């Protein structure tokens, strides 16, 4: 009986860990990545001295 309880606890912990990892990956890919792309294109564009609209146009032209 004790062994059974321990196994169940371990399984639960494992599931929790999996959910934790999965949610981290999802957060990274769905939240951070799109925002980071925007920051990347506008950041490098602004550093090159381009205007906001020019960066938008250029990004649309090259990457869509």
């Amino acid at each position, binding site marked *: 009986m004790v062994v059974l309880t321990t196994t169940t606890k371990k399984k639960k912990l494992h599931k929790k860990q999996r959910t*934790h990892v999965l*949610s*981290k990956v999802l957060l*990274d890919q769905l939240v951070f990545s799109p925002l980071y792309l925007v*920051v*990347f294109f506008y950041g490098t564009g602004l550093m090159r001295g381009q205007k906001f609209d020019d960066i938008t146009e250029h990004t649309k032209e090259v990457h869509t």
Partner: protein
Amino acid sequence: MTDTTRGQNPLLKLVYWYVNTLDKYPLTVKMITSGVMYGAFVVVHFFFFFAPVGPLTTPNSQIGLGDLLAQVVDPLRKKEQPLDWQRTGIFALYGTIIAGPLYHYWYGNLNQLPVFMMKTRRLNQHVLFILLSVCPLNLPLSRSSTSASSERLNDWESPSLLTRW
């Protein structure tokens, strides 16, 4: 440097030194590393993201490589054409002041985010339940108890109710 690194491979010493320094000054070391990576070496993420076909030949993939390396291996670049150091500098600066701190704070706090979300899940469910079920039911009911005619409600109250919902 620790005593354990004495008499070891110089490359290993360098790795130990880097890890120790990273431990002492995490943000600064990450900023410098990111700057060097963006300026000179390979950033794998963009490489895979933007270059599904012909990784070293498409203009998109040049974003994915560290800028200097991208210029060196660019097959479209003529031999006599000088390297664009300004572009490399921009990439290095971007890596140092934007990407480095951004990665540091995002991945530093990413471990906490799912825990925080789990904790607030109950509250979120509660708010969502009220927003999606109780509000749409309650708004027409409250309006119908007033003296306004049904036509008037249809004309300009309904869109506003929908918007509010």
